[in-house]
């Protein structure tokens, strides 16, 4: 089972690789994360590791949280998250242990989750990639509207109402998004930085969770399998 780190999205830049291609990368400050608690099946009913990230002043935290972090031998921390591990791997973790970006040293790919940038109330064209109506041919003042949402019969079910989940305009963004199978381009342990190919969810300075990929995209899975063999 994999490992997870919390990190801060720093920003994007470009990176020239050894074969001279130019790739967009996101710089992420990953860790150091303190293990603040180890969840065992005996006590908690499941096996997991709780980690904390981002040291803060004690007055920014609360008494209970300070105590919780203190018990693990960690300074007050801003963010706490858990990740599940196999029972057999539990003994690799102990409270107070520091996980740095080096845990991803043997990773070719990672999954990254974060809270995406909020877009506010958006129409269907931006929110759901609808095509909108025509620009001319008699269309008046409805160029970006959704069109028909179906008659009662089309998604009737039990009565003259739309079924839930009909795609319409509404609030967009500011939700948890996971981007899978991103390439790890470079790891800089001295600064605790990671370069990840392409964009990751959220604004700069936003909190991101970086995980061992649960399931790679097919092409990348094949590539990795081939790399392991060769």
């Amino acid at each position, binding site marked *: 089972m994999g490992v997870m780190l919390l990190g801060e999205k*720093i*920003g994007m*830049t*470009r*990176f*020239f690789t050894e074969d*001279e291609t*130019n790739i967009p990368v996101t*710089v992420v*400050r990953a860790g150091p994360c303190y293990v603040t608690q180890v969840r065992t099946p005996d006590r908690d009913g499941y096996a997991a590791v709780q980690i904390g990230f981002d040291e803060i002043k004690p007055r920014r935290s609360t008494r209970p949280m300070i105590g919780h972090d203190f018990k693990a031998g960690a300074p007050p921390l801003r963010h706490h998250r858990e990740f599940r591990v196999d029972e057999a791997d539990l003994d690799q973790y102990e409270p107070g242990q520091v996980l740095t970006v080096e845990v991803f040293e043997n990773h070719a790919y990672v999954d990254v989750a974060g809270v995406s940038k909020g877009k506010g109330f958006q129409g269907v064209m931006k929110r759901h990639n609808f095509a909108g109506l025509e620009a001319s041919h008699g269309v008046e003042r409805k160029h970006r509207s959704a069109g028909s949402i179906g008659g009662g019969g089309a998604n009737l079910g039990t009565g003259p109402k739309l079924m839930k989940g009909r795609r319409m305009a509404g609030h967009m963004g500011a939700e948890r998004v996971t981007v899978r199978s991103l390439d790890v381009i470079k790891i*800089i342990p001295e*600064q605790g*930085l990671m*370069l990840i190919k392409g964009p990751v969810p959220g604004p*700069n*300075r936003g909190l991101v969770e970086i995980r061992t990929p649960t399931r790679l995209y097919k092409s990348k899975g094949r590539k990795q399998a081939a790399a392991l063999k060769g």
Partner: protein
Amino acid sequence: MNRQAIIESVVQDQLKTDIPRMDIGDTVNVHCRIVEGDKERVQIFQGVLIARSGGGINETVTVRRLVDGAGVERCFPLHSPRVAKYEVVRRGDARRGKLYFLRDRVGKATRLRDRRRGLKHVAANKPGAKKKG
């Protein structure tokens, strides 16, 4: 360290240090390395530097030349490893930062004046050329 400084430190070792001073309006040679299979050769693209944009590792230069009467513009990432070398062939006088107006011009009108006035860093291309007031 703030975030901008972190990003700059990450790309620091990728920045080229041997780029000559190139100003807008200069005629430059761009030596592109072209890899075909396992062979590599250098192709020179000569033209007028009409724009520079971006900063740091994102900086690009746009070079324009005429090929058989048709304008060709190429935009190179300044720090790209695929560009082996930049050379300044001729200094040109430009009074603005972007020379997009050259796109509307043909023939003689595309020429830019040589720059000689009060610029000590410019190597004398034509020895004995008179300095203008």
